[in-house]
C-alpha cells in the first residue's frame, strides 16, 4: 500500500499501473488442452498446415542437398576432365531439379501463409462467437459490475492475440524446434567435428534469444503503457480544451504533456538499446560459429574428410538453423500473451449466470394476446450484501391494469423493473406471473411478451426500422405501421430523410429525449405486448412533444398489465393503483382519489405540486 502510494507521488496521474507490466506464465497445459477443443473441428485445416510446413521444410533441405550434389558432382568431377560436356549435362540436370523444386516451394510458401492464417482465423472466429453467445446468457449483474470497455476487449484484442498464437505461435514454435533438431542431425551427417562445434554453440544462441525476449517484452509493455498514457492525456486535454483555454492553463497542460512525453521517450530508449544490442550480439555469435566452422572445415577439406559441396551445404544449413533460433524469443512472447488472453477469455466462459433458467420451464398460463396477472410477494432484494434496496414489497397487477410507482431517486423503483424482467432474482419472496414463480418460467418466452420503455432507451446503429422491429418475427409491416401511429411517431418518422430507412446515429444522438421516447413506445407497441414496463423519462421536453408522449403512453397502457415508474401527472392519475415508495418500502397505496382522500404523504405532495404548477 505504502509502496503504491509513493509510486503515485509526483505526477500520479502520469504513473502507469505496474500490474499491467507483470508477465504471466508461458505454458499452461490445461489452458492449451481447452484451446485444442476449439481447434478440433478444424483438424483438417490443421493437418493441411502441418503437411505444408513439412513439405516446405523437406524442400529447403533438398535445396541444400542439390547444391552439394552439383558442386561435388559435375563441378568437382570436371576438374581434371578433358571433355566437359557430360559434366555440363549433369549440371543442367541439377539445375533442372533445382528449378522444379523452387517452383514447388513457391506454391507451398503461398499456402504456408494462407493456410496457417486461415486455420487460426477459423478457430478464433468460433471462439469469438462462443464468447459473445455466452455473454448474452449472463445476467445483468455481470454487466452492471464491469466496464463495457473491458468486455469489448474480451471479444476483440484478446481474441486477436489468440489468433496470433495459432498463426505464428504454437505451430511455428513446434516446427522450429523440429527444424533445429533435424538440421543439427544433418550437420552431424555431413561432418561430426563441424556439427559438434555448432551444437555446442547453439545453446549460446538460444540463451541470448531467450534472455533478450524477457527484457524486450518488459520494455515493450512499458513503452505501450507510456504511449497509452500519453495519448490518453492528449485526448483528455482535447476534451477539456475549453476549460484549459478559459483558465489559461495552456502552459500547465503542456508541461504535463511534456513530462509524459519524456517518460515515453525514456521507455523507448530502453527498447531501442535492447534491440540495438540484440541483433549485433546475435550476429557476433553466428560469426563465432562460422569462424569455428571455417577453421574446422578448412582443416577437413585439406584432410579430404570434407568436400567443397559439403562445406557449402553446411554453410546453407547453418543459415537455416540460425533463423528459428533468432525468432524463438518472439514466438515465446506471442505464446505468453496468448495464454494470458486465453485465461481472460475462459474466465468469461466459466462465469455461470446467477439468474439460471429452470430445468423444466413452464409456459405463461395466459395465452398470448391476453394480459397476465402479476404479483410481487414479500420481495426483498439487495445488490450488495447488507444494503437492502427492497424490503418486503407486495403488490399485484391484475390483468390489464396499471400500477404506477412514485418516489424519490433511490427508493427502489428501478429495482422493481429489474426484478419483473428477471434481470435479477429476488433475494427472498417471489415475483409471480399467473401464480407461477418467474424463476420457473422460460425467461425469453416470457420477456417476449413484454413491451419495454426505459428512461434513456437505447437505440442501436442501423435503420430506424431495424430499431423498431428488433428482429422480432411477430412484428409485421402492418403492426409496425399501426404502432408508429399509436405512438404518435408518424410525423417524426416521416420527417426523417429516408423515413423508416433513415440511419440512426451512434446511440440515437440525433434524436431528442422526447423523440427517443416516442420511438421506444413504438418499439414496444410493435409486437402488441401483453405486459408493459415503462420507466418514464424525467428530462424536460417541449409541450407539443409532451402532449404526444401523454397520448402515446395511454395507448401503450390500455388493456395491458403494466408497471410504470411514473413522473407524469397524467400517467399517475390514470393508474389503477399508485404505490408511493420510499427507502425500499411501500408507504402508501391506492388510486389517485383514494390517496387524496387519505390526506397522507401523497395528498401533501399533490398539493405542493399543484401549488407549484399554478404559481
Amino acid at each position, binding site marked *: 500500500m505504502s509502496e503504491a502510494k509513493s509510486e503515485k507521488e509526483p505526477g*500520479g496521474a502520469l504513473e502507469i499501473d505496474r500490474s499491467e507490466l507483470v508477465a504471466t506464465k508461458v505454458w499452461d497445459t490445461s489452458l492449451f488442452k481447452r484451446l485444442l477443443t476449439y481447434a478440433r473441428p478444424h483438424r483438417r485445416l490443421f493437418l493441411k498446415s502441418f503437411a505444408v510446413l513439412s513439405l516446405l521444410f523437406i524442400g529447403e533441405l533438398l535445396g541444400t542437398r542439390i547444391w552439394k550434389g552439383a558442386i561435388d558432382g559435375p563441378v568437382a568431377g570436371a576438374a581434371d576432365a578433358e571433355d566437359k560436356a557430360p559434366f555440363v549435362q549433369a549440371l543442367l540436370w541439377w539445375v533442372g531439379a533445382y528449378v522444379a523444386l523452387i517452383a514447388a516451394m513457391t506454391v507451398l510458401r503461398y499456402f504456408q501463409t494462407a493456410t496457417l492464417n486461415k486455420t487460426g482465423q477459423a478457430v478464433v472466429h468460433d471462439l469469438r462467437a462462443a464468447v459473445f453467445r455466452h455473454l448474452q446468457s449472463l445476467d445483468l449483474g455481470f454487466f452492471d459490475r464491469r466496464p463495457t470497455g473491458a468486455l469489448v476487449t474480451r471479444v476483440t484484442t484478446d481474441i486477436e492475440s489468440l489468433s496470433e498464437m495459432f498463426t505464428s505461435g504454437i505451430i511455428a514454435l513446434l516446427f522450429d524446434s523440429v527444424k533445429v533438431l533435424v538440421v543439427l542431425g544433418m550437420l552431424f551427417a555431413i561432418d561430426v567435428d563441424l556439427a559438434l562445434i555448432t551444437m555446442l554453440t547453439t545453446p549460446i544462441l538460444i540463451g541470448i534469444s531467450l534472455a533478450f525476449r524477457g527484457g524486450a517484452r518488459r520494455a515493450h509493455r512499458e513503452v505501450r503503457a507510456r504511449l497509452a498514457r500519453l495519448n490518453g492525456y492528449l485526448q483528455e486535454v482535447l476534451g*477539456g480544451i475549453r476549460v484549459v483555454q478559459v483558465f489559461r492553463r495552456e502552459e500547465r497542460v503542456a508541461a504535463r504533456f511534456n513530462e509524459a512525453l519524456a517518460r515515453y521517450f525514456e521507455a523507448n530508449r530502453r527498447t531501442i538499446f535492447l534491440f540495438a544490442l540484440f*541483433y549485433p550480439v546475435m550476429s557476433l555469435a553466428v*560469426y563465432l560459429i562460422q569462424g569455428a566452422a571455417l577453421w574446422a572445415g578448412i582443416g577437413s*577439406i585439406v584432410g579430404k574428410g570434407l568436400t567443397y559441396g559439403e562445406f557449402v551445404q553446411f554453410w546453407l544449413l547453418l543459415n537455416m538453423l540460425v533463423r528459428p533460433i533468432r525468432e524463438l524469443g518472439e514466438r515465446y512472447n506471442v505464446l505468453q500473451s496468448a495464454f494470458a488472453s486465453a485465461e481472460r477469455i475462459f474466465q468469461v466462459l466459466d462465469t455461470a449466470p446467477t439468474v439460471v433458467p429452470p430445468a423444466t420451464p413452464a409456459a405463461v398460463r395466459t395465452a398470448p394476446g391476453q394480459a397476465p396477472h402479476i404479483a410481487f410477494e414479500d420481495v426483498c432484494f439487495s445488490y450488495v450484501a447488507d444494503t437492502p434496496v427492497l424490503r418486503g414489497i407486495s403488490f399485484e397487477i391484475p390483468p390489464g391494469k396499471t400500477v404506477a410507482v412514485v418516489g424519490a431517486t433511490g427508493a427502489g423503483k428501478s429495482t422493481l423493473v429489474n426484478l419483473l424482467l428477471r434481470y435479477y432474482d429476488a433475494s427472498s419472496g417471489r415475483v409471480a406471473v399467473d401464480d407461477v414463480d418467474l424463476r420457473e418460467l422460460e*425467461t425469453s418466452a416470457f*420477456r417476449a411478451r413484454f413491451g419495454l420503455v426505459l428512461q434513456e432507451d437505447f437505440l442501436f446503429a442501423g435503420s430506424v426500422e431495424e430499431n423498431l422491429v428488433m428482429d422480432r418475427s411477430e412484428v409485421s409491416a402492418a403492426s409496425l405501421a399501426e404502432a408508429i401511429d399509436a405512438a404518435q411517431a408518424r410525423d417524426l418518422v416521416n420527417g426523417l430523410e429516408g423515413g423508416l430507412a433513415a440511419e440512426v446515429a451512434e446511440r440515437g444522438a440525433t434524436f431528442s429525449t422526447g423523440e427517443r421516447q416516442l420511438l421506444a413506445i413504438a418499439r414496444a407497441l410493435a409486437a402488441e405486448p401483453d405486459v408493459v414496463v415503462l420507466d418514464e423519462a424525467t428530462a424536460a*421536453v417541449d*409541450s407539443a412533444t409532451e402532449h404526444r408522449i401523454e397520448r402515446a403512453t395511454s395507448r401503450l397502457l390500455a388493456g395491458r398489465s403494466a408497471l410504470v415508474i411514473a413522473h407524469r401527472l397524467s400517467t399517475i392519475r390514470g393508474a389503477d393503483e399508485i404505490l408511493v415508495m420510499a427507502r425500499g418500502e411501500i408507504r402508501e397505496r391506492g388510486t389517485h382519489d383514494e390517496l387524496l382522500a387519505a390526506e397522507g404523504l401523497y395528498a401533501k405532495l399533490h398539493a*405542493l405540486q399543484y401549488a407549484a404548477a399554478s404559481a
Partner: protein
Amino acid sequence: MAILLRFFRRFLAYRTSLLLGLLCIPLAQLCDVGITLLVGDALDRAQDASDTEWMTRVLLLMGAYAVGHSVMRFYQRWLIVVVSRRVEVDLKTELFGKLVSLPFAYHDRSRSGDVVSRVTSDVEAVRMVLGPGLMYTLGALVILPISIGYLFTINATLALMMTLPMFTMGLTMKLLSGRLHRQSVAVQESISAISHRAQENFGGIRVVKGYAREDSQADQFEGTSAINRDNQVLLGNARGVTNAAIYGSFDLTFAVILLIGGLAAVDRTLPIGDLFKFIDLTIKVFWPLIAIGWILGMLPRAVASAERVEELLNEENPIAEGHEKIARADVRGALAFEDVSFTYERGTEPALSGVTVRVEAGETLGVVGPTGAGKSTLINLVGRLFEADSGRIHLDGHEVRELAFDALRGTVGYVPQDSFLFSETYEENIRFGADHEMTDAEVDALIERVAMKDEVACFPEGKKTLVGERGVTLSGGQRQRTCIARALARDPRILLLDDCLSAVDTETEKELVGSLRSAGEGRTVIVAAHRLSTVQAADRILVLTRSGEVEAIGSHDELLEREGWYRDTWEQQQRTESLSAAVNDEVGGAA
C-alpha cells in the same frame, strides 16, 4: 517527397549523432562483406591451411571484422533510432503546444479522433520512414552496389543475371502493395465493426434482454465476426502471394547462380571460393532489399501523414490576444452584448442573432431557451472561445477583442456543461483554477464551500485521490461541485455556468443551486440552464428563441406574468419534476 525533406530538417538538430550513426552503416556493411570475401578466399587457398600462421591471420581478421560489424551495427541503430525518437518528442511537443493554443472553433469542427491520430499515428509514420526507414534504405544502398560491384569484377555475366530476379521481386512487391493495403484496411474496418457491435450490445444489454433478443444479437455478431474472418483470410492470401513472390525470387537468384556459376565452375573459370562469395553475398543482400521494398510501400502513407502533420503545424489562430491591459483588481465585471450574432462554421442557421443584453457588475443573468437556442454559445463568447461574427461584447466598457487574455480570461471562472475534470488528483483539479500556488487551507476551504468536505473525506486517499477511471468515479453532482470549486479557486469577477445542472437529477440540483448562490455573491454570474428552476432566483433571465434571438428579458416573476415559452415551459417542467422532488423532500425531512 519535398515535404519529407522538410521534416528531415528537424533531424539535423541532432546532426552529430545522426552523422555518426549514418557513418556506421557503410562501415558495418563493409565488415560484413569482408567476412564473406575472407571465407571465400580461404576456401580457395585451403591448401595453405597447413600454414597455421596464415590460418590464424584469417581467423583473427574474421574476428576483427565480426566485432567491427557488431559494434557498428549497434551504434548505427542506437544513434539513428534514438534521434528519430527525439525528433518525435520535438514534433509532439510542438503539435501539443499548437493544439492547446488553437481556438475552440478549430476543436469544435475537427473530430478529436482525427486530431489525436495526427499527433500519434501520423507522426509515427513520418518517423518510421525518416528514422529506421532511412537507416535500412541506406544500408541496402550501401551493401547492394558494393556486393554486386565486387561480384561484377569476378564474373560480370553472373553478377548482371542475378540482379534480374531481384528486380522482379521489387516489381512484384510494388504490384502487390496495393492489394495488401486494401485488404488490411478491410480487416481494420471489420475489426472496428466487431468492437462496435460488442460495445453497443453490452451498453444496451437491458433492451437486448428485455426484448429477449440475445439469440438474434448473437447471430448478428457471429455474422460480423465471420466478415472479419473472411477479410482476414483474404489478407492472409494476399500476404501468401507476397511471401511466395519474395522467396521465389530469392530462390530464383540461387538458381541463376547455380546455372551460370556452375557452368563457369565446370569450365574452371570460376573457382569454388568465388562461387561461395556469390551465394553468401546473395543471402546478405537479400534482407536489405526486402527492407527497401517495405519502405517504398510505406512512402505514400508517410507523405500523406507528413501533409496532415504539417497542416496542423501551419494552422492559423484567428483569435489573437488583444493588447489592452487592465489590472485584474480593477476589473468590475460589467458585461454588455451589443447586437451580437454568431453562426457555427458547420451550422446553417445562426446560433445567436442580434442579441443585446447588459449584465451589471455583481448581477446574475439566467439564460434559457429551447435546445439549440445558443445558450452555451453566448457563454463561450465571453471568454472568446469563439469570436462573434458581428456586434460587440464589452467588459467594463472595453471591447473583449482589445483586451489582453490576462485581463479577460484571468478574471473569468468557468463551469463547463460536461463538468469536465482531469484524471488527476482531486486536489490538483481544484488547484487548476488558481493562478497562484494555493495553500492546503485554501483548498480545504473551497472543498467545504461546495459541500464536498464529507464526501472527499470518504475517498480512499482523501483529496489526494485520483479522479476518474483509476481513482474515484464522481457522481454528476460531485463533478459539478468540484468544477464550481475550481472556478472559485481563481476568485473570478465573472462566473460563467454553462448549463451545468441539466445532467443532474432534481434533488442534486437543489443542493447545487444553494452552493451556486453563495458562490455567485459579489460576482457577475451568467448561468445557462435547461431547467428553469436553476435560474429562478436570477436577477434577470434572458429567454432566447430557437433561432437565437431575444424573446424576452425579465425576472422570473415578470416572465411568468406574460404568455410565452418561459411560462409554458415552467408549468410543464413543474408537472413532470416536482412530484419526485417533493417525495424526496418529504422522506428526507422525515429521516
